[in-house]
């Protein structure tokens, strides 16, 4: 559906090293919910705007469906208006001088659909986002969540085959954001359009997407399903960006019964999840919620002992910082079902299937 190859965009034409986007390649399938995730300034919004045609890349090729909308080699740039896309903006960009219906009708007018056919489609789109009763309301008299829905209706009304969303939920408050997240996912399933979604919120990205591309400094660092990205990331950066993570520098010692034995600051650790050809710079990833408190008498691999140095109680969950006897420290997440006090001696078990070896040292993830 969307195919990007060798995309390059410099933010300063006079400097060779001023990259906003460098050598990005992506393939998004039809009907997929695809997310570009990364910290601010990583090039995710620039990539999206290049697809929309709001910015012209310096090099590369972008193809939407069968049509080449940008080709650096052929010097070809298709105007925004002729691309088979629709877009939802961070600020919603609802036109304040129009009513709700007029906002939603605008894309139809632009492609020459008028009269009863247009009205029917406007009504359908508004119905789809639950704003059927608001059609004649002047746009400035809407709440943030309602404006967000108008923006969505305006984006789906003309039936473009690619919908681009630039941090559409970031201006909503937390509760509304969670609600809109569910609605957005439902909407995408119902209309079946391909969504390309930009966000810096990893939870949002994981909850919504079929696939996520993690970007950093203008490049795609890692791409995969939310499940793989969270549980089996390949890089230290992606591992830390998508969720809480303790990263420890490690070296691979030797295979041991299908597992990999690692040397770490915690002592020897067995991992069930490692790259086929480990490079020289490796880290061990353990997520706080995967670490288990072990019984006093427990035996087996990946057991470490220490004392609880600090607890942070936040109701449902309790976070502990455990100072290990080896001198290292680990964050561990528990529930409030069983509370432990600061100073308690504990033994921890790191499940080998959740001990993931990733490329890059912990400092590479900063």
């Amino acid at each position, binding site marked *: 559906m969307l195919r990007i190859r060798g995309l390059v965009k410099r933010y300063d034409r006079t400097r060779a090293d001023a990259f906003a986007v460098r050598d990005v390649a992506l393939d998004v399938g039809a009907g997929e919910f695809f997310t570009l995730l990364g910290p601010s300034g990583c090039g995710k919004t620039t990539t999206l705007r290049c697809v929309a045609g709001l910015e012209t890349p310096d090099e590369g090729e972008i193809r939407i469906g069968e049509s080449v909308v940008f080709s650096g080699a052929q*010097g070809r740039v298709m*105007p925004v*208006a002729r691309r088979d896309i629709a*877009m939802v903006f961070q600020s919603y960009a609802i036109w304040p001088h129009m009513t709700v219906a007029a906002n939603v009708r605008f894309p139809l007018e*632009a492609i020459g659909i008028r009269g009863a056919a247009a009205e029917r489609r406007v009504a359908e789109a508004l119905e789809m986002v639950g704003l059927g009763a608001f059609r004649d309301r002047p746009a400035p008299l809407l709440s943030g969540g309602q404006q967000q829905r108008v923006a969505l209706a305006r984006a789906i009304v003309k039936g473009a085959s690619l919908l681009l969303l630039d941090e559409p939920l970031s201006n909503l408050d937390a509760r509304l954001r969670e609600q809109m997240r569910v609605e957005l996912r439902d909407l995408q399933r119902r209309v079946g359009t391909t969504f390309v979604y930009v966000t810096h919120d990893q939870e949002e990205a994981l909850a919504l997407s079929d696939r996520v591309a993690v970007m950093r400094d203008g490049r795609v660092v890692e791409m995969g399903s939310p499940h793989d990205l969270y549980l089996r990331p390949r890089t230290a950066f992606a591992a830390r960006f998508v969720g809480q993570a303790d990263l420890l520098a490690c070296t691979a010692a030797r295979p041991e019964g299908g597992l990999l034995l690692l040397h770490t600051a915690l002592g020897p650790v067995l991992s069930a999840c490692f790259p086929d050809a480990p490079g020289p710079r490796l880290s061990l990833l353990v997520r706080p919620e995967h670490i288990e408190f072990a019984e006093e008498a427990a035996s087996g691999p990946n057991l470490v002992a220490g004392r609880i140095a600090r607890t942070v109680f936040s109701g449902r969950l309790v976070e502990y910082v455990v100072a290990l006897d080896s001198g290292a420290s680990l964050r561990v997440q528990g529930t409030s079902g069983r509370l432990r006090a600061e100073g308690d001696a504990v033994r921890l078990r790191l499940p080998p299937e959740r001990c993931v070896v990733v490329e890059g040292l912990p400092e590479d993830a900063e």
Partner: protein
Amino acid sequence: MRAPLAARAYRLAPSLLMGALLVWLVAIPLAFLVLASLRPTGFPLDAGLTFDHYAEVYGSPGLWRLIGNSVVFALGSVAIALLLGGGLAWLVERTDLPGAGAVRALVILPMATPPLLMAIGWSMLLSPRAGALNLLLRDLLGLAEPPFNAYSMPAMVFVQGLSLTATAFLFLAPAFRNMDPSLEEAALASGASGWMLARRVLVPLLSPALLAAAVFLLIVGFVVFEIPGTLGMPARIFVLSSQLFYLASEAPGGLPLYGQVSALATLLLVVLLGFGLLYRRLTREAARFRTVTGKGFRPRRMALGAWRWPALGFACAYFLLAVGMPVGMLAWMSLMPYQVPPSVAALALATLENHRDFLDSPRVFEAAANTMLVAAVSATAVAILATLIAWFVVRLRVPGAAVLDALAFMPVAIPGVMMGVALIYVYLTLDPIIAIYGTVWILVVAYTTDYLSFGTRATGGVMAQLHPELEEAGRTSGAGASRVLRRITLPLMWPAIAAVWIWVLAHAMRELSIALMLQGRDNRVATTLLWDWWQGGEPTRAAAVGVWLVGALLVVMVAWQLLGSRLRRGSG
């Protein structure tokens, strides 16, 4: 990878076209002016090269007095304007002044009173021989001599100060209004006294706005001609702008001394462009430290207590001095057969002769029609150009946007007399090709250029506030550039464009110095007619023209105010 040639030409076209137009309107006249100052004949395209004009002007013994007068006049009037305007703005925005809303609405009244009419009104009040107020005070206080003299530097400074007060108010009121009260509350909560609050928090917060207003008003103080021309020239007190006028149109030899005009103008231009740059820098800084937070808040209002009524008296006194007395005097004189001070006895003399004469005369009709034509066409031209320039510079960021912006800003620093002289050079030289010299169209060119700086500031400001995503949403909806402009950008910009149109209309209607310099065969306007009658010893006929002009301006200003309040409501 280079864009293909056609795409590059397409990208450069707006810059090149608009750049060429602005160079034509702004840079060419100024270049001609500088060139003329170096020609023995004083005409830019004649042969020869000389510094004689500079020697003449800068070697003249009167030069330092001229500069001294100009500085005293500009600084004095700006000081008065900031004091009165700042005081009014503070009272209206930050205190419980009774009737603050009415005062805010009435501040536009002085803007409907052209400086020329204010000067004429005050000269009728304070002229040493026949000034009505002078005679009244002399008789009341039993003095031997009339106490005031309208034809003196203090009177010039006083009247100019009054005429700039409304502008100072408009600059400072938003700064007072937009100051976040939490900043003051934080200071009070830290234990600051009232005086410390004012000195350490309020003044520093306001200083960018105050400084920007001061520099802008200083430019105006150096550029204005009307008041120095009306009150200073009869007593041979010259400032730079009236000296330019004098050299160009009333020089002793009878022939305009264009060479000297240009040499003097060049100095003024350098100084004023310096001020202009300073102003631009200051306003940019001010925008960076803007105290507006975007959240709605109610500013703290100081309780005036027993001072409420004296404060209201101060506001009323300002309106009386700036509008009531001069315009009342004009109205009275327009009903008199000759200059008679107001009294019950003189009422018997009242006649509508001047007004009838004004309405019947074809000469007057022509002047009125010219005024409306020139004002309407210039206003339209400025509105269109300013919108396009703002679009190119702020939104499209075309190549060379900074140059376009600077060129469009320069006219603010060009005195009307200088603009007039420069355009004389350009269009006398080009008369065989572009025959607009002496017609209303040369006035249209002059006003369009002169008011472009105001226009681009206003439209650029609004354009910058317009979120670019509003237009991008139009483009990603499948609309082409022209549909986005027509359906989204222009409707959203419309109130600002209309406000620019009305502002230029009002200012073109009241402008005198450019119209005087470019006066020719058939481009007489209301203000030049007024000037001729006033200078020609027919004050009562001039007064009648003045009354009608104030009436017309009032209509325009009320329209502006209504539009402004609709705009505020719309955005609020």
